[in-house]
């Protein structure tokens, strides 16, 4: 039996009309934008299943754009996201797509940045506003964004993970979950590591300095406190 919080029942505070089609969509896009980083100039949203059929009626499109603009799922400006994106000259395109055997509420983000680079992120809105990111740049991953998450792209060599976990240990941050993914031994690997407490600035700085790490992202959980 799950150990529910009262705020799982009275909550989330969100922009309607649907926790899965609106709040979850905003969360997915916010995480995707964090993974891509700054200077986004164009986003194509490939909408699968229920997302492709009902996105207009549920405001899924507005919620997705709001998330790209880094808005929270409870931001009342969410419904004006198209206008705000236009002001910031961010181009958005919605394309119905068949993404295969995935959850009915799934979206694939193809994000273009100012320097011409692409980031692709796929994720599903799995109910109650909760999400699951399952693919980044054609690399399978799995994390929910409910906890602070560290995402690395690093060389698959002995000792890299131990360097990261040492930093976390020294900063007194407990690891809740970690998974390492790689396509080929000794090449590049991806790690999604979830922690129990926020990852401190110092820890982030020290992890960024580890030589074998190509890139590292920190994704803070989207949790409403006192609004």
């Amino acid at each position, binding site marked *: 039996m799950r150990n529910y919080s009262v705020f799982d*029942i009275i909550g989330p505070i969100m922009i*309607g009309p*649907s926790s899965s089609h609106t709040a979850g969509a905003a969360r997915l896009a916010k995480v995707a934008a964090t993974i891509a980083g700054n200077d986004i100039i164009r986003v194509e949203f490939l909408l699968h299943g229920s997302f492709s059929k*009902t996105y*207009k*009626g549920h405001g899924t499109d507005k919620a997705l754009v709001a998330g790209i603009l880094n808005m929270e799922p409870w931001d009342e400006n969410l419904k004006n996201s198209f206008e705000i994106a236009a002001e910031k000259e961010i181009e958005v395109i919605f394309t119905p797509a068949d993404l295969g055997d995935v959850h009915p509420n799934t979206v694939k983000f193809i994000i273009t940045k100012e320097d011409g680079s692409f980031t692709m992120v796929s994720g599903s809105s799995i109910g*109650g506003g909760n999400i699951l990111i399952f693919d980044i740049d054609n690399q399978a991953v799995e994390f929910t964004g409910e906890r602070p998450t560290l995402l690395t792209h690093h060389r698959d060599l002995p000792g890299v993970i131990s360097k990261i976990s040492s930093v976390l240990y020294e900063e007194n941050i407990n690891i809740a979950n970690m998974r390492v993914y790689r396509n080929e031994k000794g090449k590049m690997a991806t790690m999604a590591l979830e922690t129990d407490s926020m990852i401190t600035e110092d820890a982030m700085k020290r992890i960024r300095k580890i030589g074998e790490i190509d890139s590292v992202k920190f994704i803070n959980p989207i949790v409403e406190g*006192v609004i």
Partner: protein
Amino acid sequence: MFVSNGKELIEICNEKSIPIWEYSILEEIEKSECDRKTVIDRMRSALHVMMNSSTYAQDNSVRSVSGLIGGDAYKIKQYADRGKTLTGDFMNRAMARALSSSEVNASMGRIVACPTAGSCGILPAAVLSAGEKLDKTEEQLINALFTAAGVGIIIAKNATLAGAEGGCQAECGSAAAMASAAVVEMMGGSPEQALSAAAIVIKNVLGLVCDPVAGLVEVPCAKRNIAGTVSALTTADLVMSGVYSKIPFDEVVWAMYKVGRQLPSELRETALGGIAITPTALKYKKEIFKD
């Protein structure tokens, strides 16, 4: 860890001589490792959002994203203001509050899912209407939300709160059960009476299907929020008169879950059955999704 069922909830509350809301606060403090003030202030945020969502569409005629619903909370308020209602000012204002939150939700405004977005009108309408009538303080209204949350946790643990899994009985039915229990504790009823009210409310909507027109959280959802609110409030009076549910809360929740599992998928949020496939509903759907 929060107790597993209603029987244990009544036992522990009686043993400690505390209401359900106090037990829920104590458990949340332990689970979240936050202090009492932090936990209460987070619920205060929810209350403030509810106050706004349950009022806004009474004063402003809003339209849903699809254009299918809107403007009705405003109509009920005008009607109540004219003072010629059958069921009285209290009930009409409660109905207007319930519909207001549902209309705010459908028009992409800010709401609190309680327990879901589709049923977000019921708890605020019942608690705020009872609070106004009984002259309750903000702290007491916050406590009532903790009662509701405690009852919701028990339902979530033993059944489901999702329309896709259990039909509307699990969403609006649970919301109304939570609201009725909250109002009973606001009126000074015991934990046992609170769960008795929750049981009666669920029994009265057992089998209610989830059949949203065009798959949207609008028709018939918004008006089911009114029905849930009225049921929550009248059942609170029923229980406070001394009437009890003949079937215990835990067994009613079990039955609700069983019924939910027996519903075909067409009647669980897929928009493939019930009201959603009536000729008029299909006409609306065609109009909304034309490109």
